């Protein structure tokens, strides 16, 4: 008999019981990971090495054989079961808000600051342009809102009379979260998507303020956004800042590959995004129930807005250990 064929048949016959047992233990461990004892895991890890060696032998001596493919499949299955990413990443709510989220916020703070500058510039530009050319504000708000303003009424009042607070609350929360996610995801387009969201929101806000000022109703608008506006705009800028950090990593990866640099920035940015999303639920409730309410004093709304913003900033920029910051 040919040496190769003889070796193949002998190899399969002598190792079959071991391979079948290994495959069975892999199946059991995957079906009920909790039932895997330390000894069982250790035995699997030791046998994994033997599987890799058998695979190397099969690949070298019997290329293209079914045994080689079977052993490769076993090796891939075992690799997935036995190797996990950094176990420190196992989720802990306390660790997330105490360390990871503030670390991500600090790491991308310069990008958030840049977003804030762009936002302010965009507001100023839109305010000036809409003051000089009032049709800009009319185009943005629509003729119905302008009619309301002429009657001395903000467009938000008519909406809050028609739409129940619970519905507007959930719709506002989910819409704001979608905007934040868009600003974040847009960062991967070399930061352009994030910058667009910032400039667009700034432009809308500036134009709306210019229009309400023209009708002498900017005070009413301030009162309406007093409770939710500061934090809402901050969160949009924060998510855009995280997106911009991803874009920055793509543009300037330094000594790493573009993919590695952007990947590291994306993970940190994801921590930042996850950290801000729960705040949008709080904001949804405030914007749906408190902001349109005529029974809540304007001073209370402004105080609530300041308190919300301060709470967020305290959580987001709490002092952290040096190791986490790095």
């Amino acid at each position: 008999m040919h040496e190769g064929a003889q070796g193949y048949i002998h190899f399969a016959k002598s190792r079959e019981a071991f391979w079948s047992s290994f495959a069975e233990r892999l199946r059991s461990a995957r079906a009920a990971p909790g039932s895997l004892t330390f000894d069982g895991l250790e035995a699997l890890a030791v046998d994994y090495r033997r599987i890799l060696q058998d695979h190397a032998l099969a690949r070298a001596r019997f290329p293209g054989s079914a045994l080689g493919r079977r052993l490769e499949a076993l090796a891939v299955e075992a690799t997935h079961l036995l190797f996990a990413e950094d176990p420190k990443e196992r989720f802990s709510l306390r660790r997330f808000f105490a360390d990871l989220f503030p670390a991500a916020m600090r790491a991308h703070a310069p990008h958030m600051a840049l977003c804030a500058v762009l936002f302010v510039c965009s507001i100023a530009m839109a305010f000036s342009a809409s003051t000089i050319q009032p049709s800009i504000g009319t185009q943005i708000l629509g003729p119905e809102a302008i009619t309301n303003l002429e009657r001395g009424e903000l467009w938000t009042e008519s909406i809050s009379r028609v739409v129940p607070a619970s519905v507007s609350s959930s719709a506002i929360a989910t819409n704001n979260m979608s905007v934040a996610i868009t600003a974040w995801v847009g960062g991967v387009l070399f930061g352009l998507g994030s910058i667009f969201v910032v400039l667009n929101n700034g432009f809308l806000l500036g134009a709306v303020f210019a229009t309400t000022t023209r009708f002498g109703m900017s005070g009413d608008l301030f009162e309406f956004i007093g409770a939710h506006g500061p934090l809402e705009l901050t969160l949009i800028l924060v998510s855009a800042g995280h997106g911009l950090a991803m874009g920055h990593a793509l543009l300037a990866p330094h000594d790493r590959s573009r993919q590695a640099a952007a990947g590291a920035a994306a993970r940190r940015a994801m921590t930042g995004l996850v950290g801000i999303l729960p705040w949008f639920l709080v904001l949804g409730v405030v914007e749906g129930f408190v902001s349109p309410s005529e029974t809540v004093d304007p001073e209370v709304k402004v105080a609530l807005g300041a308190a919300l913003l301060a709470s967020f900033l305290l959580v987001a920029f709490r002092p952290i250990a040096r190791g986490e910051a790095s």
Partner: protein
Amino acid sequence: MSDLRPETLLGLDNVEVRLPIAPFPLRILASLLDYLIFGILVTAIMVFGVWGVISTGARSPWFIAVFILGYFVLEYGYFVGLEIAMGGQTPGKRVFGLRVTTRLGGQASKGAILVRNAFRSLDMAVGVPFMIWHPLAQRIGDRLASTLVLETAGHTKEAIVRRVPQHWGSKEIAVAEEFLRRSGSMEPARARGLAERLLDSIGRDSPGFLGPVTERDPVERLRHELGVTDA
């Protein structure tokens, strides 16, 4: 030392293992199945919302509020939640034998799964060309999360021969096993024809190896003569 291909990882003792990268058509099919399930779930909560509004005589808007929030949670949470809960799989991926892993074939962390799915909306627009052109079929989310989508083991059965003619070497074994593995998905007439040619070749070169004809189907007879077991 051989040049490593992108889909090859170096395991313990520097043993090369080729990662079975999932082909993009399979990933698209898995996604379509998942979006079908997603659509059914959305319809379910929509029916719940409408039923709530009707049954309360349109007095309670909370059902609409729950629908809006529920839709949002499903939209962003379906893939993330299931991939975390099912070890890198969703129902669609499980049906088509796919799994999300790290770049080195290990279990992807929750963070990585969050990152890869955060870019799903962007990948819906531009992900397919990325998957086609990239040697590891990584879409944007996969690249940023350093994840791969692999085919899981056990999705295809291997036919291993246990008895071979004397003159055969490893090449002949590989050809026979490859044919028997694929014979199930081949056109039956073509599979039978190839099996007959293999049997003729064996009978000509190794007289006495083949036993009496007990199987009518040449493919089954070839399996029987070569002592094939599926693994």
